[in-house]
């Protein structure tokens, strides 16, 4: 059996409605659904891979294709149901289908079928909010970075410091008064900081930097390597694995620095713009040390950010 997505008008006894006895209204509804399903399919899979079928005599239509193709369509439909699809062909047409299957006067079956399983799409689709295109991606991303520079200015009413790279090239880093007092010892020297960087997609907008911590010399190389990999990786599960690997490495190689590193990480990730799983992972890793003096306060602060984010997620 080939893999398919099937939509059928059904009667109370689960049988498909016979084409021979349809009301004009039901026919109209079925045609909308059928045509929308086709539009969704061809927006994702090459037409040459697709076949469409109508069960003889019944108001049941199906799109059929190799399993991986139908899976891609199914996946995109799932994304659209959770509001995550940015494929407009899918969201527009799925919204049309949703409107029809939510009607009280007609009853549909909408399923994904392969040899082993039949997965219901009808229920999640009719329970979902009105299908819409995913909100545009945020125009910026937050990244943690180790940045080095020559410190030539610090202070101000809204405290910040500057790294000067010569030739008018410099960056401004926001910090707290307490940070500024401590960083002051590096004035007119080279230093390396762990920064939270708000990077705008528009290239003419300047990146914004916030101070996280001054990293000690013997840890810089490790932080830099970890964050380089972390920022390059897009998949969340892999990113989180990198964090575990980084902490493991520090615990193995620099056992006297472990609490210091956890302290930096807990401060660095204490920002509501990170994913809930990123916050949670730091909480899990640091849990056994939560009473330690270098950990306690910063972990409690991260926990608070996490709890607020979780309630609103």
């Amino acid at each position, binding site marked *: 059996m080939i893999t398919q997505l099937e939509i059928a008008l059904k009667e109370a006894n689960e049988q498909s409605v016979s084409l021979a006895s349809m009301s004009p209204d039901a026919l109209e509804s079925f045609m909308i659904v059928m045509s929308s399903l086709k539009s969704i399919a061809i927006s994702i899979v090459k037409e040459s891979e697709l076949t469409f079928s109508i069960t003889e005599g019944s108001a049941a239509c199906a799109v059929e294709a190799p399993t991986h193709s139908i899976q891609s369509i199914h996946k995109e439909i*799932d994304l659209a149901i959770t509001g995550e699809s940015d494929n407009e062909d899918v969201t527009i047409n799925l919204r049309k289908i949703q409107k029809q299957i939510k009607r009280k006067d007609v009853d549909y079956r909408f399923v994904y079928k392969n040899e082993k399983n039949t997965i219901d799409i009808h229920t999640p689709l009719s329970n979902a909010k009105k299908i819409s295109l995913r909100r545009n991606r945020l125009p910026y991303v937050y990244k943690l970075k180790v940045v080095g520079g020559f410190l030539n200015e610090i202070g101000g009413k809204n405290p910040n410091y500057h790294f000067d790279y010569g030739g008018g090239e410099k960056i401004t880093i926001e910090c707290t008064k307490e940070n500024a007092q401590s960083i002051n010892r590096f004035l007119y020297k080279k230093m390396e900081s762990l920064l939270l960087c708000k990077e705008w997609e528009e290239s003419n907008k300047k990146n914004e930097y916030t101070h996280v911590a001054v990293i000690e010399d013997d840890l810089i190389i490790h932080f830099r390597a970890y964050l380089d990999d972390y920022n390059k990786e897009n998949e969340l*599960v892999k990113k989180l694995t990198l964090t575990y690997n980084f902490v493991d490495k520090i615990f193995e190689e620099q056992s006297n620095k472990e609490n210091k590193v956890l302290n930096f990480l807990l401060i660095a990730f204490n920002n509501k713009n990170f994913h809930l*799983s990123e916050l949670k992972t730091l909480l899990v890793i640091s849990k056994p040390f939560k009473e330690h003096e270098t950990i306690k306060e910063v972990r409690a602060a991260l926990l608070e950010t996490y709890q607020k984010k979780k309630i609103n997620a």
Partner: protein
Amino acid sequence: MLDLLHIVKSHEDSGSTADFVALGYLHDEQDPHTAFIIQHKEYLTEFHYDGGSVVYTTLFDSYFHKNTLTIHPDEVPAFIVYCKQIKQKAKPIYGFFYSGEFYDEEGNYLMNKDLGERMTCVGFCLNVLKGFLEEDYIDYTDWGSETHTKPDYLKSYCKRYNLDIEKVKASHRRITPLEYLTSGLFSNLPIRKSQIDSWKDDVREYLVKRL
């Protein structure tokens, strides 16, 4: 009414599109088993301790499961990575997972680390939750030594492992797979034995009907 329990057959009800972590229960009159059933994107996986090793695979066995309300869908990636770390590290490196208390092969809760690496499937799952959640998942002190019904078990166990019975008897208890599944109905932590007791017969009846 019991459908309101939202306990489902893992294989049948995988149409869910949202990520979840669920408490899985594999029925067997003699030897029931427990696991985590995890949905992330289109993947449905099981994570458990099979008595020999820690296993993380595509869903294979015919579990019943109940989504736990203690883990938010957005935390599922963090949970998956945490599980994979546990699988990879047979021994704790920075103390997570083995957060101080351990289960032996019969479900006895032991504070003694020299013994503790052996545990039941339930003990394993509870330890995983204990390491992941901020609060304790269950109040294990509700389960007294009377919850383990095999006579003289503690005595013979201590003899076999050369343990001081006085040191471990306070930790002697058994939490069953059915109790583990039933705990999924609750989200206020820590979960008390009395809450589980008031529902577990209904859960058992529900499962038996659907076998």
